[in-house]
């Protein structure tokens, strides 16, 4: 039972992710999560007035079932495999985030004071929750993939386009973390 409640180290998690990718390849599918967002647009009828969403999303139903699994998997991990000690972040991270007003870094999966319904309609909430989500959806489709499609699958297949995309992921991520969050979180 110890194994269930303890966090899994990187050398457990990384290889397990690779095995998920392999399982999908063996099943004749490709590992990629962001294409589901496009399917969801198509399901809601976006294909009627926009060619990009006029495709046979039913061929992607298996991937939507995979997403349903993600919800259940998250629920199972949260209910039966929760680590009571929280996340062991580096001391530097904890110190910095405390300076930005996050009281207990690592206590939950995300800073609950930021990702809450109460905080949604503040500048911080709108930027992190709403704008952030928009950019994830817009950017992943523009780049033709997200972390699963480019960083894991694409790099594993030695694809140069995926390397370029991952460099982009870091340009964007470093910009926010180093230049934007220090101001945004102390507003």
């Amino acid at each position, binding site marked *: 039972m110890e194994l269930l409640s303890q966090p899994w180290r*990187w050398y457990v*998690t*990384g*290889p*397990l*992710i*690779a095995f*998920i990718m392999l399982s*999908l*390849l063996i*099943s*004749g599918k490709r590992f990629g*999560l*962001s294409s589901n*967002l*496009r399917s969801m*647009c198509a399901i809601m009828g*976006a294909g009627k007035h926009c060619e*990009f969403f006029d495709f046979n999303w039913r061929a992607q139903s*298996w*991937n939507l079932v995979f997403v349903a*699994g*993600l919800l259940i*998997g998250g*629920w*199972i991990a*949260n209910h039966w495999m929760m680590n009571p000690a929280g*996340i062991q972040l580096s001391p530097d*991270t904890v110190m910095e*985030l405390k300076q930005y007003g996050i009281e207990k870094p*690592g206590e939950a*999966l*995300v800073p609950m004071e930021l990702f809450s319904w109460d905080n949604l309609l503040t500048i911080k909430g709108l930027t992190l*929750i709403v*704008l952030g*989500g928009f*950019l*994830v*959806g*817009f950017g*992943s*489709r*523009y*780049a*033709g993939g997200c*972390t699963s499609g480019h960083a*894991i699958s694409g*790099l*594993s297949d030695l694809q140069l*386009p995926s390397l*370029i*995309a*991952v460099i*982009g*992921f870091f340009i*964007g*991520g470093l910009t*926010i*973390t180093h230049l934007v*969050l220090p101001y945004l979180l102390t507003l």
Partner: protein
Amino acid sequence: MKFIKFLVLGILFGIILTKGEVISWYRIYEMFRFQSFHMYGVIGSSVLLGMFMIQVIKRRQIKALDGEPIKIEPKERSFARYIIGGTIFGLGWALTGACPGPLFILLGNGISVFIVTIASAIFGTYVYGRLKHKLPH
């Protein structure tokens, strides 16, 4: 019934990313601040093992369960769409602390406000679809 396998794989993936703390906003922050090896270890070990798996599949010409050869289509050649799209995605990744898979896993973990982020991500995808012709690719 043919979908049950994908439901199980999704459940496993949800558990793996939760237990590996990959869905944590804090871990993404820490990664972009270069303050911990954790995320680099996760992505690095996954990619190294993945490279090995894909090489074996290609050299041995391993077939999928349905008997079809496993063909991995190369991504289309371009620079602009990957660097610009990737950068925009990176901005969102660092803000939300989540990429598309983790958005749903976080919701499963009971952090209900992520339903707004998911709706926003679907809307972002929709706006891309509408603007696609005007953007450099």
